[in-house]
């Protein structure tokens, strides 16, 4: 079901843990769904004086695919400018992992959402203009999180 690459990243995940000094966090997922991803970024500047993701890490509660996509999205994002990073698509994450089973594609979405959220939070805290794409994604994440909460409570009542 999982590609070799997914299993490799699951077994030896890159960039795991919490950065000692980070500029922002992106938190996505819901424990009721079995997937929670926290993504930490430290923003720096490149030779052209553009803001880049100087360092990045994650903490994830989730399945094999959630852990592998956490590893992969951070690998892809590291060193990229914020603009480039914000443009990363979940398909790229999945493809670079040699594909994901259909029922696990949502993990790659979660991973890019976490990254977007981190950048969104960074820009918002700084008071910078937030690109349209990030605003849209943020709204989507908020909406999902609300839906998850509803589902969670329905599941909880079921389990009595």
């Amino acid at each position, binding site marked *: 079901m999982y590609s070799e690459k997914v299993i490799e990243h699951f077994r030896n995940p890159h960039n795991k*843990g919490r950065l000692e000094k980070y500029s922002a966090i992106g938190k996505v997922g819901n*424990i009721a769904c079995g997937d*929670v991803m926290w993504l930490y970024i430290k923003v720096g500047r490149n030779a052209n004086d553009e803001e880049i993701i100087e360092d990045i890490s994650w903490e994830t509660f989730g399945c094999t695919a959630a852990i592998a996509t956490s590893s992969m999205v951070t690998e892809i994002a590291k060193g990229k400018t914020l603009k480039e990073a914000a443009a990363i698509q979940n398909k790229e994450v999945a493809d670079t992992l040699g594909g994901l*089973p259909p029922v696990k594609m949502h993990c790659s979405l979660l991973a890019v959402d976490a990254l977007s959220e981190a950048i969104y939070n960074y820009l918002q805290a700084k008071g910078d203009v937030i690109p349209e794409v990030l605003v849209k994604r943020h709204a989507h994440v908020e909406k999902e999180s609300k839906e998850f909460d509803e589902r969670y409570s329905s*599941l*909880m009542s079921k*389990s009595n």
Partner: protein
Amino acid sequence: MNNDIYLDNSATTPVSEEVIEAMLPYWQVEYGNASSLHSFGRRAHIAMEESRARLAASLSASEREIIFTASASEANNLAIKGLAFSGINKYHIITSQIEHPSVGKVCQWLEKQGFTVTYLPVDQEGMVDPDELAATITDDTLLVTIMYGNNEIGTVQPISQIAEICREQGVIFHTDAVQAYGKIPLALENVDMLSATAHKLHGPKGVGMLYLRRGIKLSPLIHGGGHERGLRSGTENIAGIVGFAKAVEIAFAEMEVLRDRLEGFREQLIETITAIPKTKLNGQRKGSLPHITNISFMAIEGESLVMKLDEHGIATSTGSACSSPNLEPSHVLLAIGTPIVMAHGSLRISTGRRTTQEEIDRFLTILPQVVEELREISPFKINT
């Protein structure tokens, strides 16, 4: 592969050497079709009937009451749909919330066909309440189907009590005994139908059976040449059937000794694992199936625990249906009231005939490390 530790015997089991030896002649030498008139056919037929007799004996049943199928899923479908379509004008079925999908999904499908189904709740250990069951029986109740032992958490139901209630009320009672058959002694006095499968007790995959009490009429699922007394057509899988009978023979001969050994393992597993902080045993503390132990770990997702253990050559499974598209955790764990977070972090360890003490010890050394590793990369920190 020699170093691998297989602790997923409730998913399926390795086929025993004796079983393979019993099957071997039926591929190249005694390969006849049991319906054929000639000696090849007659010898195949005899082998099949001897196997049937052995299975019947294991249930104190008569040979006519054993119907071979290709799986317990098929046996469950045949029992439930076969009765539903047998022409009895009753349209209510009682089952539990913790059945295997080959019972649960059949019931849901029958609801679409106009049947009414009561899904009985269970208590925190996973037990159906016989009184509650008795109270839901109506004049319209066709069938009660309650599994003998649960495949995820190992809980054993009060089957003899339930079966007696059904008999008294004149309701047919079926039990999915896949996990219990050959593992613990069964109380079958008032049981009308029972499903089992070979591959859960060191027999081959692809053979199951339905015990069908004499006098109960079913409509077949598979029509055709009229095999199995017209109830299940298709050329009989003689090698598989012979292998099933051999596996059952061994299981019954070894039952007491094996059960003691596996109960010992289970005690050790529970003691050692629940000593890890933020863990919880799912299912019965006492009286459970001996081979199944299910434990939840806070802040860990079950699938990644299984995959991490796999890295160490240890095969286990998770109760959480992480592979299901809707991401909901195991219906069994939810039914026993497990909080969602804990339900996502469950691990099922199931032992078998081949499991050794050394394997259990090694597993118990590795597990805490793996749990630690996964908790470390989780955003939810457990203070250990």
